[in-house]
């Protein structure tokens, strides 16, 4: 069962999930999304909320709705590449903000990240 955080609108949490699925290529350019009702059943969420998620992502140019056919991931690869950059930027921003709040310097952050990734590439560190 998927749980939602009550401190943020559900329609935005669902938009985040769809964005991540697109960036991770679980959903590809041109893929069809489930109908509003099927998506509602899948997540146990009001279909009106799903409609809002789809509309929001359409407004951002990530999804397109074709009348009578359904909702699809845009075929404009350029838009998806940009979205991939946006999400990366968002995550890095979050991470850096937390590190800076705790007082880490830029050098400490960079070297720490590099060490972590080196170990991770060698398989020493487990992904959690």
């Amino acid at each position, binding site marked *: 069962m998927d749980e939602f955080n*009550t*401190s943020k*609108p*559900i329609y935005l949490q669902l938009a985040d999930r769809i964005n991540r699925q697109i960036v991770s290529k679980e959903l590809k350019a041109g893929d069809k999304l489930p109908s509003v009702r099927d998506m509602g059943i899948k997540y*146990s*969420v009001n279909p*009106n909320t799903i409609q809002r998620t789809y509309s929001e992502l359409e407004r951002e140019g990530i999804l397109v709705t074709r009348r009578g056919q359904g909702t699809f991931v845009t075929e404009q690869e350029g838009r998806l590449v940009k979205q991939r950059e946006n999400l990366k930027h968002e995550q890095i921003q979050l991470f850096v903000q937390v590190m800076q709040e705790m007082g880490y310097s830029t050098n400490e952050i960079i070297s720490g990240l590099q060490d972590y990734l080196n170990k991770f590439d060698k398989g020493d560190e487990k992904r959690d």
Partner: protein
Amino acid sequence: MIKLTDVSKTYRKQTALKNISLTLPIGKIVGIVGENGSGKSTLLKLIAGLSLPTSGQVTVNGETVNRRISKIVSYLSELDSFYSMYTVKEAIDYKASQFTDFNYTKAEEIMKFMQLDSDKKIKNLSKGNRGRLKIVLALARDVPYILMDEPLSGLDPIVRDSIVKGMISFVDLESQTLIMTTHEIKEIEPILDCFIAVRDGLIIRMADVEQLHESEGLGITEWMKKSYMSS
């Protein structure tokens, strides 16, 4: 549209609802929340025409509500109201004989979705399956308003989830509104458009659920704890 104008309800000397006014449009899933005895069920019964206001007016689609409003309002009581010697199919036939808008095809689809066996006798059904059957009976009517009093109460998590999914699948939000009272807020919250909080016979809040998440960063339960503690 459902419209309550300055409605009060008094039982003998006890006031159940005080000067309530509200309007509810088509196409919404609405939750009525509040403590036991706050007036939630009374509110539902007034809309269903099972109880008449002591003062004020209740209208559904412009008609003043009385018992005959059941032709456009489907009501699911908190109590089991079917005969235990009936089979599931007989209970459905009985309901269909009472309401011309009863949609057999839809009833069968919901039964299939809920995995209910139509030949079983009601007295042999588990509590969960009796809960599911009640949902079938309430949802299979082609009416604009469906009211449910505590549809998830006393049921296990699996049954609750199948009922929630059943509501999403079979309430047609283009032409229907579902209104229910509930204490199972965690499960119901993601399917609600808006909620009505009742306390001591008064509506203390009526709001769009996503609006509450967005502007106050709170879920219904957190909001209730916060506002009930502070007053």
